[in-house]
């Protein structure tokens, strides 16, 4: 592989790390593609076959949805100065509430709404605890996660008599004729409404953060709350809005997760299974930029899709439990290489206005 990425491993150097790693990865893919095309029967050929399958892209998009929405929410919260470690909990509560309300109302879309409301209520609780009562944000975020981790299986047990809910109607897929016939990329036009919504949400988030007054307030609230305060904008109000927004977005992601399958499973770490924490790494890797966060989400979700396909097809002789660790290990490696993102200056700090 590209050895120059190993040439300057030192600390504090201004190496364009991202470029080098992405370049090395791209080079690796090219080598794999050439090898795969030359020898379709080899391991490289089989791997290429999996990578270029339409089903792989479809699975990648499906798995991206909860991570991408949670990551967008996390960006708003952290940009405003509130680190939201509790995204995992918001996804869990939305995933359960989505199925429960879809079951009660008989409509998948009411379920989505229910999931969003539940997640937003929990985010509001988190916001009050952090902003009003000056709690340590990391501890409060962990509490949100653990509350949801207990509450969702509890509620599921009460209503359905077990940690897994009954199956409800899924949201279904929207297929765009002709376009969905394209090899590989056809998956983009044969997906759940959530996938289309995800692209819209990424673009909108980018626009709101970088091109609107509210976005400017959010950025100022995280970087220099004092200046924002001096300009006459209430820092607390901005932070409340940003954290509630993270609740809404994570709510869509969580409801999408359970309602595209039509069931909530609450065993162990539940069906959310760390997606909320992967979302945090996704937006750190994407440097707090919605588009960057989306691209790193696709990377993680793609690895997840790959491991699911590897498990399903069983072409390589790797034990399944080990294959399952691929996304988690990648997250750790990415975090170790790009851990030094510049967090907003005031993130994690409580802001108290001088004049009360």
């Amino acid at each position, binding site marked *: 592989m590209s050895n120059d990425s190993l040439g300057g491993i030192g*600390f504090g150097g201004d190496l364009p790390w991202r470029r080098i790693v992405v370049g090395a990865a791209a080079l690796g893919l090219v080598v794999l593609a050439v090898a795969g095309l030359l020898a379709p029967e080899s391991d490289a050929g089989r791997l290429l076959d999996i990578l270029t399958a339409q089903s792989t892209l479809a699975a990648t998009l499906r798995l991206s949805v909860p991570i991408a929405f949670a990551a967008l929410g996390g960006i708003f919260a952290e940009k405003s100065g509130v680190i939201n*470690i509790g995204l995992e909990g918001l996804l869990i509560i939305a995933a359960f509430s989505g199925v429960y309300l879809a079951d009660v109302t008989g409509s998948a879309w009411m379920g989505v709404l229910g999931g969003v409301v539940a997640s937003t209520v929990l985010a509001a*609780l988190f916001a009050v*605890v952090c902003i009003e*009562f*000056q*709690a*340590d944000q*990391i*501890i*409060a975020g*962990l*509490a*949100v*996660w*653990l*509350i*949801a*981790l*207990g*509450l969702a*299986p*509890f*509620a599921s*047990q*009460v*209503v359905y008599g077990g*940690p897994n809910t009954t199956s409800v109607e899924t949201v279904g897929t929207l297929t765009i004729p002709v376009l969905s016939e394209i090899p590989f990329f056809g998956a983009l036009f044969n997906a759940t409404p959530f996938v289309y919504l995800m692209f819209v949400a990424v673009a909108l988030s980018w626009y709101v953060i970088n091109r609107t007054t509210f976005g400017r307030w959010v950025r100022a609230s995280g970087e220099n709350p004092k200046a924002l305060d001096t300009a006459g904008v209430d820092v607390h109000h901005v932070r409340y809005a940003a954290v509630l927004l993270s609740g809404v977005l994570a709510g869509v992601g969580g409801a999408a997760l359970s309602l595209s399958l039509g069931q909530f499973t609450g065993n*162990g*770490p539940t069906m959310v*299974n*760390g997606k909320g*924490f992967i979302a*945090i*790494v996704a937006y*750190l890797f994407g440097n707090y930029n919605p588009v960057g966060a989306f691209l790193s989400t696709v990377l993680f979700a793609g690895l997840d899709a790959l491991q699911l396909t590897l498990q399903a097809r069983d072409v390589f002789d790797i*034990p*399944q*439990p*080990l294959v*399952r*660790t691929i996304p*988690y*290990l990648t*997250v*750790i490696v990415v*975090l*170790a*290489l790009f*851990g*030094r993102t510049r967090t907003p200056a005031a993130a994690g700090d*409580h802001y*108290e206005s001088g004049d009360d």
Partner: protein
Amino acid sequence: MNLRDSAERLVRASAFERFLISAAALFLSIAVGFVLILAAGRMTTCGTAATSFFGVGFCYDPITVYDRLFLGAFGNVFTDPLNGQFATTLSETTVLMFTGVAVAVAFRAGIFNIGTQGQLVVGALATAVAVLAASPLVSGLLGTLLLVPFGLLVGAVFGGAYGAIPGLLKAYADANEVITTIMLNFVATSVALFLVQDHFADPESAATQTVPLPDYAVFPSTVFRPRDDFSLLAFLFAVAVLVGIYVFLERTSFGYDLRTSGIQPEAAEYGGVDAPRTVVASMALSGALGGLGGAVYVLMILGNFQTGVPSYGFDGITVSILAGNNPLGVGFAALLFGVLKSGSIVVDVGTDVPPQLVGVLRGLIILFVAMPEFFRMIGRRVWTFEDDSGPQPVTDGGSGGERDE
């Protein structure tokens, strides 16, 4: 009144205040749980209402639930002090002491180790495999005397090594330890599943578990019945570890460095503390304590390693936070949680309320302890407090408000 007196008074006041905050948080969690049980009783269907408030019937009666939860854990302790339910309470407490103090050591060093669960799994599996491999070499009482300490050592070493990984990543690559430790929990669970399935499975069993350890290779049950899976020796060992860690933190120079790094990283650096090494050492120690918990879980409760380890590591977070990250306080908080865990079994058997209730309480307690300002505000309404310092993160040993006499 000189400065030293007032400083001491402040520390006493803050320790007392922390106790009050923990007690208030616990009480508030139980109150929220009360409402939750009532609400859950409206979500489900039942033939006859278990209780009714204000003319509305509810399927679950919170009073009954809490009665079973807290008193069920003790069984008929007055007539039979060695009863099985009480043994379960104490054995849960024993493991929670290790996970609680593991989390406390990291938090005191200013590191959020959420990976105690993974470190416990790694320690538990290593202990089960190593003791099984060594068991043919010795037997009888000598076997117990050699194998149990050996198992504990293996658990501590493997847990410590697994804890050192996120420590190294934080110290030398700036990787946020909250994320890395949570990811490593998933990795530990999957790798343990793989190792047991492919290499250490018990051929006699359908479940995913290792070969049972011989009787002489586990903790002897001493005064309790052997089938109750509780050993007074393990319990006393846990108490000794808590006291040891307390002395280490309060009385040794390394413990001092560790605490200073937690409260004032810049000051610690300035005072000549090697920050990266302190981070790695704290995480290794924290992981070793988690691994010890895993070893005790194997050598006292299971007698082998099985996949699907209970959430001792996450409970340890609550135990530590409830104890204000004080190793001696961890003992009491672990007992409280041992009661809840053991009582939840009684609740599960005796009522229709799911045992996951304890999981909800676990999160609520952390949330309420994390917001001392809330209680101070109520306190100020009730008494007249001085307008004191700002927020106190739960991870520091800081001082809180002072009562205005």
